[in-house]
């Protein structure tokens, strides 16, 4: 068929849908059907129904191969372009996404492997890949973007003396930078939640986290920075943080900040998705 031929009618396309669902059309016909599917929801639904039927035919019910999964896991990369979450979210009703999905509890360990000898269908998670995946989340999150942030973060050092007053002064200091951490764009959680980070050139930063909903006493909020593709803990904030201070080195770029909810005492590496987050646009 040539491109100058008239497009088939709806009825003609409909006749092709069964063969289309079986990948049994010639390329030209496939292209015609796919053009039609961009405009005809009825035909899209019919193709979906055919795929459900063929999916049942193909249902082998066999176990997935652990060895093959290992090959897949080795090839996983962090999405580098448009955040896939945002593309997916454009179609999702956030109210239908359970918050639990956004705060997944993961096993604490290493490439994810199927451990068939110890427990069938259980997965082990390798720390390196987990950190990379978590860092990728941070690298793509939405949030207020701040330029020229060059700090190496070391560890938390909470200054106990008049933190609030000093923090307020830092907030009002025109030379400091403010970073607004917000829930992921389509998070089903409270939309008004936001946390402000204030950082300057002194090596001390402040977290204004009064908006965070208090956690049970067995849990704590924890602040993280993504640095060179790794997540670094910047401090355990407590279950009801208010205003807290943290220290950092000035010199290394932080790609993103995030706050997670963790078990009491905090964790060395997080397995949770952020409660609030902000990407930092590099200069």
């Amino acid at each position: 068929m040539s491109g100058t031929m008239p497009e088939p009618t709806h009825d003609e396309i409909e006749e092709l849908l069964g063969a289309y669902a079986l990948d049994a059309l010639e390329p030209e016909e496939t292209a015609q059907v796919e053009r039609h599917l961009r405009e005809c929801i009825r035909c899209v639904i019919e193709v979906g129904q055919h795929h459900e039927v063929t999916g049942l035919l193909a249902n082998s019910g066999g176990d997935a191969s652990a060895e093959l999964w290992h090959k897949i896991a080795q090839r996983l990369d962090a999405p580098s372009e448009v955040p896939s979450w945002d593309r997916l979210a454009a179609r999702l009703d956030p109210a239908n996404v359970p918050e639990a999905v956004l705060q997944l509890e993961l096993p604490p360990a290493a490439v994810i492997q199927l451990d068939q000898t110890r427990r069938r269908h259980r997965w082990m998670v390798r720390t390196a890949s987990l950190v990379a995946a978590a860092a990728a989340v941070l690298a793509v999150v939405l949030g207020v973007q701040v330029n020229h942030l060059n700090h190496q973060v070391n560890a938390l050092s909470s200054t106990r003396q008049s933190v609030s007053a000093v923090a307020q002064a830092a907030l009002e200091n025109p030379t400091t930078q403010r970073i607004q951490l917000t829930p992921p764009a389509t998070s089903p959680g409270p939309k008004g939640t936001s946390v402000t980070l204030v950082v300057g050139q002194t090596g001390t930063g402040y977290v204004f986290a009064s908006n965070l909903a208090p956690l049970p006493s067995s849990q704590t909020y924890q602040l993280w920075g993504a640095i060179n593709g790794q997540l670094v803990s910047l401090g355990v904030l407590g279950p009801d943080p208010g205003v807290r201070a943290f220290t950092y080195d000035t010199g290394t770029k932080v790609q993103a900040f995030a706050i997670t909810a963790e078990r009491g005492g905090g964790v060395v590496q997080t397995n949770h998705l952020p409660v609030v987050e902000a990407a930092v646009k590099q200069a």
Partner: protein
Amino acid sequence: MIDLELASDANLVVAVARCHQPALAEAYRRHGGAVHALSRRILRSDPPAEEITQEVFLDLWRSPEKFDAQRGTLRSFLLARTHGKSIDFIRSETARRRREDRTTRETATAGYDVEHQVWDLAVAEQVKEALTALPDELRQPILLAYFGGHTYQEVAKMLGAPEGTVKSRIRVGLGRLRVNLAARGVEPAGAER
């Protein structure tokens, strides 16, 4: 907190879209076996089937938004992608000769062989029954196209039937199969939509 083993497929994909690798692992655990088996059955060779299985899950990792839970299940989505990739492979230039040889063989056995294959694959008794309930003229074109990887034009030649008839029988056959499945309590997802 969520137990991945209990999460719905749709929620797994949401988590995959959040670069959550264990969610992809769980999706693989649930559907990887069926994906691999389908590709191996169509290609009759394990190395390319393994490669296609990897591609299917890497695609899900990179473009999870292509799955639309409103249109069907994750399993049918993954299997449709698997089927498409497998068919692309056997229609590729490098595999053309092997395919031509196979076409010759299958023409001689006209559907018997592929029916045996589907018995291996279809674990549910209801699926077998629903297929058996289809008249031969509806069942054979579906099996030859789906598991044999033939176009409907090729199937028409193999069965000695007009192309338009085969095209129509495939569509009618799939619709009838769906009804047969529903009558046996197997309700394909999306059937009510």
